[in-house]
């Protein structure tokens, strides 16, 4: 058993290393996500969540989805994590310590139930979609150029609609933040 394992290692070490590039960040991702849920210190929880975002990006890249991985890092680490951190900093410090009261009674059980229910719903949708029945492509890579062409070709309407939505959100935020003229 051990001998076979070593033989495969020496025959194709690059492939083995490649697999570990997926497994290791995936383990870090799960550990960091779990730790960020149970952490009492909210800032530590937010930083661990950021670590799990990074690990998810690395998993994407290791699986050949470069574009998704980079966008994951750019959007989630660069923007979402910072928004979360700012939100925490803008709350009162005594609320940070009171949050441990949430960990008693039915709250944890309810949280776990909601998490599993939403996971089940998500998996149900994924497996019932027609995409799940398509055969897997031979090569597990998504070249950036192909993604760009798909976004500008088949999915251009969706892209434009999303762009308009985000612009509207940006304008709305600017209007809310605008100084009131006396």
């Amino acid at each position, binding site marked *: 058993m051990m001998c076979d394992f070593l033989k495969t290692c020496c025959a194709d070490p*690059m492939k083995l290393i490649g697999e570990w590039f997926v497994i290791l960040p995936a383990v870090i991702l799960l550990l960091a996500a779990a730790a960020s849920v149970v952490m009492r210190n909210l800032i530590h929880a937010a*930083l661990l969540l*950021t670590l799990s975002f990074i690990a998810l990006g690395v998993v994407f890249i290791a699986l050949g989805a470069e574009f998704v991985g980079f966008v994951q*890092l750019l959007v989630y680490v*660069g923007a979402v994590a910072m928004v979360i951190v700012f939100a925490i900093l803008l709350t009162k410090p005594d609320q940070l310590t009171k949050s441990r009261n949430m960990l008693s009674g039915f709250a944890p059980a309810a949280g776990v139930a909601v998490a599993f229910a939403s996971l089940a719903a998500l998996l149900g949708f994924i497996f019932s979609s027609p995409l799940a029945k398509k055969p897997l492509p031979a090569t597990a890579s998504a070249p950036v150029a192909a993604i760009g062409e798909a976004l500008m070709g088949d999915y251009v309407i969706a892209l434009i609609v999303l762009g308009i939505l985000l612009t509207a959100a940006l304008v709305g935020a600017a209007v809310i933040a605008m100084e009131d003229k006396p």
Partner: protein
Amino acid sequence: MISSLERVPIDLLHWFLGLVGSFGVPAWILAIVSALIIIGTIIGVFLGLFALTSVMERKILARVQNRYGPNRAGPFGLFQPIADGIKMITKEDLVPRTADWIVHLLAPVVMMVPALMVLAIIPYGRDMVPVELDAGILYFFAVGAGTEVAVFMAGWGSNNKYSVLGAMRAIAQMISYELPLVISAIVTAMIAGSLSPSAIVAAQGGGGFVPQWFILTPWGFTAGLIFYICALAESNRSPFDLPEGESELVAGHLTEYSGFKYATFFMAEYVGMFAICGMFVTLFLGGWQAPLPFLDIVPSWCWFFGKVCFVAFTMIWVRATLPRLRIDHLLAFAWKFLLPMSFAAFLSAACWHYAGRGPLAWILSLAIVGIPYLILGNAFTNRFAVSRRTYLFSE
């Protein structure tokens, strides 16, 4: 004519790998050795540049301010980095008692990682790009986003109000300036038709006597200037250094750092500055291309590092010349001037491409960039006209 020194770094690497390979080392170990050599060389070169710049910056600042600068350690003060390094290592490493010591310890490390990682995709010369990525530009900005996390960790982990204030300022500034930075970089990707840095450099090659660099077009000049300003802001350099503003925030997120942790921050900041200078050179100044065809006798990597050093020099020059901005002016400048101007550059580049890149394209793209500049510039100077400052709470 291409210089015989052109391929020296690559030939050296191949010669060494051949030497190692002749002992019957398996191919996969050779691949790892090759990668390690490339990583070591890049880190060595950039840390050497950092050491050189730390003394040159002080020298240039001194020259501008009409004084001598460091001149005691070695000839012309050239051994100053060594003296500084020894001083930094032997200093006491203070951790405040109330600090969150894990976050406090990890922050400089997290700061260093993106600064070094972004160096991987920059084309240093002809066929000399360490990692050839289709989405290289995207990688640069995606990895660079980690810096903000590090700054926040440093500010919050120190448990000091000035640190938190400095970190909040730094993050607000970095997020605001990242938008025009990315958009002005995307403009070049749009014209080159690729997100890969080597393809963008290749698109600026050829041409006749006049170099085909993107900075020599109306849209490229605008986008390049925006990129340069945002690069100053992203690397927290003067006149955008108010996260560190020593006179008001006693160095912001760096307040509670001493000894080698402080040196790590310093190092990461300078390496990050060189990385973004390298990106500026790659995107707008033709990367490793020589300005004139007959100047190809100088190796391409010399051109690249020469241009990078020149851009770094202009950054030092700016630092010596301009005063620090106020935080509200700084953010207003990013959102109300740079962002619309980067959209104008974007539109201008699109028109330049579709108008055939000829004289008509020049007029069109010049107009599309120039008119918003005049309108915005006018509005901006009126809005922030210098007036007597009124104090609300003191008289």
